[in-house]
Structure formats: C-alpha cells, structure tokens
C-alpha cells in the first residue's frame, strides 16, 4: 500500500550539527503524531464500514449503529450479493467497463498516433476541440443524450452506456496520449518507414508498445471512472436489472432502509474491483492522476 521509493540517505543533514539531537527527535515525533493522526482519521470511515458490514442486524438494532460490534456475521454479504442484486449489478458493471476502457484507449491512441506523428492539417485545433468536449459539464449533454439513445433504440441498454462513456472520455485520453507519443524520438519511426512498414504496422508494432506506461495509467483511471460512474448510468438506463454497481448501490439503500449491515456490505463489494485495480496498478494510477500537474 505504499508509494515510497527507498528513502535516500539523509547524509547531508546528519552532517549539520546545528540542531541538538533531542530537538530533532521531538520534531520527528511531532511529524508522526500529526501524520499518523490524520491517517487514522482518514482510514476510520473505511474501518467503520467494514465492521458494520460484519455485524448482525439485531446487534445494530439493539446496540445502535455507532456502537462497538457485539457480533460477527457474514450473511449481509450474501444478502447484498444475492437478494440485493449485487452480483448481477457487478456483472453489468464489468460488461460496461471492460469494453469502455478497451474501446476508448484504442480509439484515443489511434487519434493520438495520427495527430502526434503526422502533419495532419489543423492537428492542434483538433486536439484542443477534442479535449474541450471532455471538459464540458455533462449536464448540458444529459437530456439530448438520453433522447438520442431513445431515437436510436438503444435507450435502457448497456450498449448505450458504453458508447456514451467512450464518447465522453475520448478527448482527455487523446490529449494525454498525444503528449506522450510526441516525446518518442522520430528516428524510430523513420527507421521503420525505411524498412517499408505502413502506418498501421508502425502504430501497432512500434508506437503502441512504447506508449505502454501511459496506457496503463489511463487504463487504470478509465476503469475507476467508468466503474464508479453514477450520472451516465441513471441517464441512459431505467430498468433495475441492467443497472451497474454504483446506481444499484443506491437502489440497495432504498430497499434496505435501516439494514445498515447490508448497505455496508454492498459498499464493500462495490469497492473491491477498483481497490484491486488500484493495488495492481498503483504506480501507474498515481502517475496518471498527476498527469495534469506535470503537464
């Protein structure tokens, strides 16, 4: 769970004899007290939701939601997964998220490749227009998009959700990928051209593999964003059985009003895939989030 690189030896500081040892020790203690306290405070809600999810309903009802647990009961997970529809919603989420991530990255990297490696006319304008589409507040699109999907007969289907998600994300992914691809030296492409490779070969065999770090970062981000989405789902979907995890979680809340153990179990289940992606791609995930700052 950590992002530390091995700490560099603090040699230069140790050579400065200005501060007495006990003062430095006190300062280190203060740092750990502050940072540790904040961390505990930050993790507390997560610990709380996990402990609530393993309490029994009668324990919560008789001792109160905020009391220490007096029971250990995993049945809430079965309830949230089965009767509450969590399992089905999870399947829907994967049916939406995986194609969305693959399609967005494929289309965005194709556009980024052409725009960054060739003299396409107006390329800078195209990139910025695409990016501006992603910066639009989605509210302006909600009504027209839901009507458009009705018109095309895909309203209330996962297909509609996939297409909308791909369309809305493309601008940002293209922008980031073209920035990354532009830093790849031109000689590599020239050499391939001389060897007689066509643009598709160069794209697929050379540039795309070299873009892997950026693709991993964006893939992890896109997975989390799509998986956690609420707004687009409740805009183009209506039937409960096609709802992905996030809107289903809201439904669960309506269904199990005061069964906090089931609601908590649902929240834990809903978080598992994104936490797994985060743990697996941690380095890329964080560098992806930081892309905006470094650019």
């Amino acid at each position: 769970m950590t992002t530390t690189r091995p700490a560099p030896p603090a040699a230069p500081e140790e050579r400065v004899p200005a501060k007495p040892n006990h003062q430095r020790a006190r300062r280190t203690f203060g740092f750990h007290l502050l940072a540790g306290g904040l961390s505990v405070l930050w993790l507390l809600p997560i610990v709380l939701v996990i402990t609530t999810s393993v309490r029994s309903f009668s324990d919560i009802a008789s001792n109160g939601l905020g009391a220490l647990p007096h029971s250990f009961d995993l049945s809430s997970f079965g309830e949230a997964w089965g009767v509450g529809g969590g399992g089905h919603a999870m399947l829907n989420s994967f049916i939406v998220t995986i194609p969305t991530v693959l399609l967005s990255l494929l289309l965005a990297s194709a556009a980024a490749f052409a725009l960054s490696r060739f003299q396409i006319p107006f390329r800078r304008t195209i990139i910025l227009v695409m990016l501006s589409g992603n910066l639009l507040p989605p509210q302006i699109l909600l009504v027209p998009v839901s009507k458009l999907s009705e018109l095309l007969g895909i309203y209330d289907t996962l297909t509609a959700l996939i297409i909308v998600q791909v369309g809305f994300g493309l601008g940002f992914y293209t922008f980031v990928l073209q920035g990354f691809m532009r830093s790849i030296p031109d000689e590599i492409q020239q050499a391939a051209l001389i060897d007689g490779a066509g643009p598709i070969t160069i794209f697929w065999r050379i540039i795309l593999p070299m873009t892997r770090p950026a693709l991993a970062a964006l893939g992890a981000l896109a997975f989390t964003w799509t998986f956690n989405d609420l707004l687009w789902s409740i805009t183009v979907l209506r039937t409960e059985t096609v709802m992905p995890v996030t809107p289903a979680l809201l439904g669960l809340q309506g269904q199990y009003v005061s069964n906090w153990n089931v609601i908590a179990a649902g929240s834990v289940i809903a978080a598992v895939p994104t936490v797994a992606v985060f743990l697996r791609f941690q380095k890329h995930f964080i560098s992806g989030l930081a892309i905006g700052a470094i650019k």
Partner: protein
Amino acid sequence: MAVLAAPVKRRRRAVRRVPPTLLLFVLVPVAVEGFWVFWPALQGFYLSLTNWDGVSAPTFVGLDNYAEMLSDDIFGTAALDTVIWIVLFGGLSAAGGLGLAMLLNRERKGVGFYRAALFTPVVFSLVATALIWQAIYQPDGVFNNVLGAIGLDSWKHSWLADPDTALYAVLVPALWRQLGYVMVLYLAGLKGIDPALYEAAKLDGATGWQQFRHVTWPQLRSVNSVVLSVIIIDSLRSFDVVWSMTKGGPYHSSELLSTYMYSTAFQSLRLGYASALAVVIFVLAFGVIVTYLVRAFREDQ
C-alpha cells in the same frame, strides 16, 4: 539549385499527402465524440429555448426559461449553494491538499503509508463514500456518539435531515475523498522543484515561511492553475455525493445546480427548463475551460 530543391519538395509532398488510413485514425474518434458529445451539446443549447415534456414536440419559447430562473426560489438556493460549494470544497481541498503535500513531501520513514492512507478514498465511488458517511451521520451513528462521549450532547442531531446543516454534512465526505487527489497533484508539483533553489534560499538565511513564500509558491504556479481548473470543474459537476446523500433536500437546502438540473429533467420532466439550467452550469464552467485550454495551447507549442 534544382538538385538541392528536390528533396525539400519531396518531403513537403510527403507531408501533405497523409495516408488515407491515418485520416480514418482521426476521423473515427472525432466522429464518435462529435456525434455523442458536440451534437448533443448543440441540441442542449437549442432545447434551453423551448418548453418540452419529452413526449410531444418541443415548443420554442425564446428566453422564457432564463426569465423564469429570476423568480425561481429553488434556482436561487441552488445557485447560492453552488457558490458556497465552489468556495468551500474548492478552497479547503486546495489549501488542505497543499498542506498535506508539504507535510508528506520529504521521503522519510512511514511517509508512504501516510500518503496511501490519505489517498485511499480516491478509489471509492462517491456513492459508496456517501453511504459510508450517511451511516456515520445517523442519529445513533458514530459522529453523534463521539459528541456525546466528549460531553457535547446538546450538539447531537440528525445532520442530514436538518436544512441548516445538510449542505455542510455533504461537503465533509466530498472533501474526505478529494483531499488525497489534490495532494497527489501538489506532490507531483513539489517533486519538480529544483532543490538548488532551496539551498540558495537557505544560504541567504531564509526562514521556513520565506522559503515557502519565495520559492515553493512561485514554483507551484502551473500546478495551482491545474488544481484550480480541476476543482472548479469538479465542483460544478458535483452530483453523485449530494444525490446519494440528500437528493438536494431537505427542502432544497443542499440543492446544487447539478442536482436541481437532474431532478428538473428526469423527475419533473421539464426538459426545456432543465436544459436552460444546464446552460447556466456550462457558462460558469466555460470561463475555466477557456483558461485551461489557453494554458494547454500555450504549453503545446
């Protein structure tokens, strides 16, 4: 001369004749985005000038929807709440994120754990976040229990059901989730500062505050503008957390423009008026988008 000119000419022609497959590489994504983003956006502007229930044909009413906002109390509340939200959510997450980044910037024992702890909520969906905090805010939840334990029994109440506290009660989980993200942005920015600048400042006898004021802050300028854009766009978009905790209630006390727009469109089925509300959100975001794009454009050169 002719010999010299030949390669130049050939190169220019190669440049101009982009292979047709490459045009497809660009055209397909642009068409997808155009059809699902830009075309609907244009329709959104048009619909804001109509009355529409979503079933019969929209009727053109000019600027009536915008005129209606002036006398719409809920719009007033939502607009005010949105401003409060931008200032508090934006201001606190920027200041807090910078503070956390400064605190956890130096590589030392345990710092990786602290960063990860503060960063973890970013991974959760806002809906899950909202549900976690809803449980905390319950009348018999942890928050009230803690207040009771430290002798503040009179402060106990149902935070989300009280119009005076609902908006701020929703703000806390939003901040809980956003702070770690802003911290990552600032950590990346701090990493990019040349340590030699601090060495020089120390040699000149600069205090910690002076180092921050004259080295750190100016060096973070570009990160600040990114953080600012991200935060304002995020605040205007903020929907999930409010919708899952209060749906804008009680009595619209935690209503944001985004939640009001959604309920007007999909619950009241007043699609024309909702589109006009969306245009207001767009106009507010537009300034930020333009500033952001101008920056991206400049750095692109």
